[in-house]
């Protein structure tokens, strides 16, 4: 039993953010890819930067049989490969001394009781203060098992002065029904305030900068509405195919894999109203309002507003690649979309009649995620096309590059030096890489720190997830209705997607940005 501990006055003024508290981090599915590629490298980097509390320990919970030592060795190999910093041998040794392995089946209740005893002992040995952070990195089909056993073994309950939190990786369900079921299951064990749903896009420096750009500068907010903005484009393109993820991707597709979470989150950050304060719930309240204001795309609108595509064979970076249906473990007759383009409308005062065009796709020519805010044309009264070279569509565009080459640029018109009045677009550019020399932490580093500190701002709330699913479900239902069943368009790998996606935006008199 831990009495409530006094506030540590020595921590005050040390950092401008909430400090992470000593805790045990238990990763369910610890032998998986995520732990090796992202989580442990992130924790190591935090340790190397002095951001991890000394009392932290990491317990990997998985089915395979191995010792602490073997587990540590495997994680060291992964950290050396994936860490953004070079591994220091002494520091790794120190960090690894706090890593343990706990073998158990996810459904084995006794395994959780043993885990509880182990964590209690770690509290005494390492001063983790009874705090527990459970990371569900296992397959979604295991979540219910894990959560139920956490509850029944008492691990989800903590004495006064301690906390237990759960981090849930996406996908948060596959539709509204399953998402609600998952949320209900989580809530039987953990309160919403202790539930952290990861969307790693929110941990990216540039995604966090969207709010700063909008609300720390007086310049933009007056223009950030339907009077001045013509349309918004959000693009997430990948050169990669599905790699080894066919098992998951066949059941998901681009809409569920990327739009439901990452792209709608970016849309919310762009479209939201200023929050009343910077608390997690105030910000998330505003994001939910955006999702609720999205005009639903039902079966009668889906053909007009959504294009689904699937890549065929082609070439990427000059090398031939196979089409989706030829990828390993993909059904030859698969109708899973690897590309989707949508035209969305937000029905509120700020965004009335401003279309948001979103596209996401695999096996496109370039990889990158960006947001383009296209402003309305200036009145063609003073400078017109014939005399000065101003073309229709040469709008001012504010581009927020989420990855790679993170930064912000503004395209505007300028006179070309010379005797005649010729006008050409030029770009004002701010790049993270050349302005802030120090590398940003990886998204997972920030997110793990925030979870340990109890700050949920960068995590999705229950209602955000469910509203997003409600929106996506309508589209899925529309796709699979009888009248729309044939709506899958093919595109060669290495092209910018199906011609029908170009038509989606061109019929409005606009064009996709050239990345």
């Amino acid at each position, binding site marked *: 039993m831990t009495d409530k*501990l006094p506030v540590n006055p*020595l*921590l005050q003024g040390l950092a401008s953010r909430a400090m992470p508290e000593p805790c045990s981090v238990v990763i369910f599915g610890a032998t998986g890819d995520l732990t090796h590629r992202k989580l442990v490298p992130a924790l190591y980097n935090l340790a190397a930067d002095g951001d991890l509390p000394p009392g932290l320990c990491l317990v990997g919970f998985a089915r395979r049989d191995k010792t602490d030592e073997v587990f540590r060795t495997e994680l060291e190999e992964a950290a050396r490969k994936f860490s953004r910093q070079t591994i220091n041998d002494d*520091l790794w040794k120190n960090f690894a001394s706090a890593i343990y392995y706990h073998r158990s089946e996810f459904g084995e209740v006794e395994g959780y009781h043993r885990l509880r005893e182990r964590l209690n002992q770690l509290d005494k040995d390492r*001063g983790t203060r009874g705090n527990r952070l459970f990371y569900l990195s296992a397959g979604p089909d295991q979540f219910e098992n894990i959560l139920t056993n956490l509850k029944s073994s008492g691990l989800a309950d903590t004495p006064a002065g301690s906390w237990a939190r759960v981090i849930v990786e996406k996908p948060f369900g596959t539709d509204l029904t399953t998402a609600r079921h998952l949320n209900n299951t989580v809530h039987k064990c953990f309160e919403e305030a202790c539930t952290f749903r990861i969307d790693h896009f929110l941990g990216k420096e540039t995604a966090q900068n969207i709010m700063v750009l909008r609300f720390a500068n007086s310049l933009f907010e007056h223009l950030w509405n339907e009077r001045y903005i013509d349309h918004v484009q959000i693009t997430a393109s990948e050169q990669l195919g599905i790699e080894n993820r066919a098992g998951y991707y066949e059941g998901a597709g681009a809409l569920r894999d990327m739009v439901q979470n990452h792209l709608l989150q970016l849309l919310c950050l762009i479209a939201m109203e200023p929050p009343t304060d910077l608390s997690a719930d105030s910000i998330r309240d505003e994001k939910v309002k955006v999702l609720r204001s999205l005009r639903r795309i039902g079966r009668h609108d889906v053909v007009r507003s959504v294009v689904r595509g699937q890549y065929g064979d082609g070439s990427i970076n000059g090398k031939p690649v196979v089409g989706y249906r030829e990828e390993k473990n993909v059904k030859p007759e698969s109708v899973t979309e690897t590309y989707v383009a949508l035209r969305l409308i937000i029905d509120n005062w700020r965004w009335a009649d401003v279309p948001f065009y979103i596209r996401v796709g695999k096996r496109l020519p370039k990889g990158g995620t960006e947001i383009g805010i296209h402003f309305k044309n200036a009145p063609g009264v003073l400078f017109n096309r014939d005399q000065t070279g101003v073309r229709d569509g040469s709008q001012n565009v504010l581009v927020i590059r989420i990855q790679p080459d993170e930064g912000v640029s503004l395209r505007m018109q300028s006179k070309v030096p010379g005797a005649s009045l010729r006008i050409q677009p030029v770009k004002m550019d701010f790049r993270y890489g050349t302005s802030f020399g120090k590398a940003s932490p990886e998204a997972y580093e920030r997110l793990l720190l925030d979870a340990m500190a109890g700050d949920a701002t960068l995590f999705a709330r229950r209602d955000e997830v469910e509203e997003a699913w409600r929106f996506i479900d309508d589209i899925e239902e529309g796709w699979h209705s009888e009248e729309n069943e044939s709506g899958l368009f093919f595109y060669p790998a290495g092209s910018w997607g199906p011609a029908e996606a170009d038509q989606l935006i061109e019929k409005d008199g606009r064009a996709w940005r050239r990345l």
Partner: protein
Amino acid sequence: MTELQDLVRGMPVEVAQINRSLKALWEQEGNVLTRASLINFAVYSEAPDALSANTQLMEQVTREHACRIILLAANPAASKQRVRAWISAHCHLIGATARQVCSEQIAFLLDGSSPDLLRNILFTHLDSDLPLYLWWQGEFSNQIDQQLWSWVDRFFFDSHSWREPAQQIKILRGSVASAGSRCVLCDLNWRRLIYLRLAVAQLFDHPWAAQQIDAIRDLDITYHPEYWTTAVLFVSWVARQLGWELDEKRDFEYRFKSGKADAPVAVRLTALPGPWIGDVKFGFDQGNLEVKWSGNFLETKLQGESQLKQMLPAGGTTLASLVQEELARGGEHLTYLGALKIAEELWSGE
């Protein structure tokens, strides 16, 4: 050899032609170089060979912080006023691209320096719309007039380098106050302590140690003989955060009254060659908490009802790394200002 490579050594220019020369430089090299600047970082020194030493230091600093550097090497005792100037740039490759990112540097040698001259040189050569950080190296001689103070956003100094720190702080405070300046005081001596403070603070997060925080019996610190001011700043931080009041001050021993404990806390400082602060040990009735410098790390130990050993990063030890750390932090350093009040009391009379 391109003109820019000459510039890295410093190209002499007429003071009145500095901006034009810089513009010509970027026009010439703009295809392969990117000029970057987030702040004006002015460095003032009266030490001989300051320009050379500070140029090397800034080469390190600009790896992480793009700025326009203005180096001011002053010789106030010179009989005749004269100003000479050089321009150069610090360029670094960023990421995997072939493009170099460059911070430009203007170096001045000021013979017969005065507040008027200093103000004029700075005002003329600041990159517009950017904040001004001014680093005063060495003793503070109150050469900054009111108008210049009003432009300084952050004032860097190192109280470790002062012979009489209490007196210097008094002069500095007076100068800032009379100018009505709201600049933030950035003491590199305080920055030296950041990793040590983090380590100590985090150790006291351990449940057993947290229970002992109001029952500290003594505090023993070993420090390098030249870093007495640093050790005193550390003691001042602890005292301020824990609400201790100075009861008695002897040579290198202090007694503090803690409102929450019966017995006073004995603080002992011992000079020993080694790191600026080699060892910090908090003694309790039934154990102790120790942080010891070990190579590039801080070895932390908790011994008592619970035992814990940890290694934590110690941060960089060079002046460049301190400056980089300080530049990476914002805020008004309120914790420092609070600790400073106690430090002034401990510094005075020693």
